[in-house]
């Protein structure tokens, strides 16, 4: 299969999954007891004629398929509804929060990648010795520790007891930093949430790298390369690292949704002003259109990330063309 038709097929799949997301979100709203009008009129004793007029104007009295078409049409023209609580269109609110979440996610992935790959290489080069066991134990602990709890514990250690890092937020309030000082301030605020969310992925990447190192070391082309006399560092860099990166790219694509789920908890723990925190706040303020909007936007984002990793894959892995 050629690269173009492979990408085309992926594109078609993504469009189909986005369609499923629209259907799912449409029915999710309708699972709730009562409709939006009941919700808006909650607690009052509204005039029945006014209620009927409101239903008509919102189109809730129309048949279901017609409502769905209108809803889907709205989504396609980027109308995700209106947040009555925040008096703003949902899409604007969610997009305004997106950069903070993307920054956190990028920081988490960078941390997990660097530390995970390093630990994996250390483990693979000391197979069966204590370093190897230590990395395995660390990975297992990383899998088993709830990220929000790890967050609280490192806040306790580094912000409360040692007092060397800020415990929450994205910037220091009232300091009015600009330029480099501002960047440094944000970086300091990033450290704890990054560790809290990244430790799990560090464990995963360490295991992937270790496995790849061991697999690759057995392969003929690496034996041949060694026989040719290239150094160990070159073997690691040229062959192992590239193969480990393939696995890591795949994993990141598949787990992007998992990462977004993690940001909900971590952004809540650290009062990080991103989309995850927004999802939590929208529940606290009973802002259902906003909660649904965060679900829609983050889902579409994850699909785009998947699509991107699939496409990156075709460039990194030459085998994909034959594999089809």
């Amino acid at each position, binding site marked *: 299969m050629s690269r173009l038709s492979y990408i085309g097929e992926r594109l078609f*799949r993504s469009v*189909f*999954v986005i369609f*499923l*997301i629209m259907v*799912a979100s449409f029915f*999710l*709203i309708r*699972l*709730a007891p009562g409709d939006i009008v009941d919700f808006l009129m909650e607690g009052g004793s509204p005039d029945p004629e006014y209620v009927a007029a409101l239903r008509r104007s919102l189109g809730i009295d129309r048949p279901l398929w017609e409502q769905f078409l209108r809803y889907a049409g709205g989504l396609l023209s980027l109308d995700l509804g209106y947040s009555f609580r925040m008096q703003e269109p949902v899409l604007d609110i969610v997009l305004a929060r997106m950069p903070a979440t993307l920054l956190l996610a990028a920081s988490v992935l960078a941390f997990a990648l660097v530390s995970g790959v390093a630990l994996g290489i250390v483990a693979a080069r000391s197979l069966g010795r204590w370093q190897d066991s230590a990395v395995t134990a660390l990975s*297992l*602990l990383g*899998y*088993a*520790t*709830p*990220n*929000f*709890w790890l967050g*609280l*514990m490192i*806040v*306790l250690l580094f912000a*409360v007891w040692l007092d060397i890092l800020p415990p929450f937020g994205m910037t220091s309030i009232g300091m009015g930093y600009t330029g480099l000082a501002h960047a440094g301030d944000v970086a300091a605020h990033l450290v704890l949430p990054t560790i809290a969310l990244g430790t799990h992925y560090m464990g995963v990447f360490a*295991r992937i790298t*270790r*496995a790849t190192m*061991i*697999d690759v070391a057995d392969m003929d082309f690496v034996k041949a390369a060694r026989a040719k006399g290239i150094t160990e560092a070159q073997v690691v860099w040229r062959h192992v690292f590239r193969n480990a990166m393939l696995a890591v790219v795949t994993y990141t694509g*598949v787990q*992007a*949704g*998992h990462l*977004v*789920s*993690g940001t*909900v*908890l971590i952004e*809540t723990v650290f009062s990080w002003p991103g989309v995850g925190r927004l*999802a*939590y706040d929208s*529940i606290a303020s009973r802002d*259902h259109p906003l*909660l*649904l909007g*965060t*679900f829609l936007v*983050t*889902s579409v984002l*994850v*699909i785009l990330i*998947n699509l991107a990793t699939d496409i990156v894959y075709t460039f990194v892995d030459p085998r994909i063309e034959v594999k089809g």
Partner: protein
Amino acid sequence: MSRGRSLGRALLAHKGGLLGMAFLALVVTVAAVYPLANPRSPWAMGARPFLPPLTRGHLLGTDMLGRDVLLGLVHGARFSLLIGLMSTVVSLTIGITVGAVAGYFRGWTDEILMRVTEFFQIIPGLVLIMLLVVVLGPTMWSVVAGIGVVTWPSVARIMRAEVLSLRTRQFVDAARGLGQRPLAILFVQILPNALSPVIVVASVMVASAILIESGLSFLGLGDPNVMTWGYMIGAARPFLRDAWLLSAIPGVAIVLTVLAINMVGDSLTTALNPRQARKAERA
């Protein structure tokens, strides 16, 4: 019989698995027995708040409302394990059915079911669970349903792969030749032979269900009538500075339990899929 015995031997040979099983047995026993010896409600606010651990009558002290921490921990163990198991059952039911049907009938059925599976695999699971819990109301059942609904895709994928490889075997051809109906062949002939990799995933799934549930309860989105570890951590969070043990203790309980389940899962992998295990051992 001999298969069962060799399975048992393989399980016993795995030290981590044994350790994990011993710890889980301890947790289950305490969760079952302790409430009999101490029948108070974990919500009862009898004692002075913020009593330190090792106080007489309160082995792990009391929380900010004077509730016994040990009692909360024990009831938390009950519901964490219960919710973990029940949501795994939901997840297995959906995953096995979808995977088996997709793998057996192939073609368009397979194509559509796998796209739906992909949808559930891709979306941010926690946000969907939050939506479901908000829409259906925060009960234990909606939490179980929510976790089940977002965790089944991996089961479906494994099941599908197994069924795809089993459906061309001779014993299946024989059943077809004898005139058995497709669904009977699928559920009577193929399914029992496809289960061992699913069992391995199921054990890990209980662990991840416990983690998801703890996150939900931590956010205050769990069943408000059920004492859970996540709730204990979340409720004690405002007092982190002065009473950090109240947040630390239930977290340690989660880590140890999830670790134990994962180690049992590893030993199941070794026992049921020796070939995959040898690969994983090196991995």
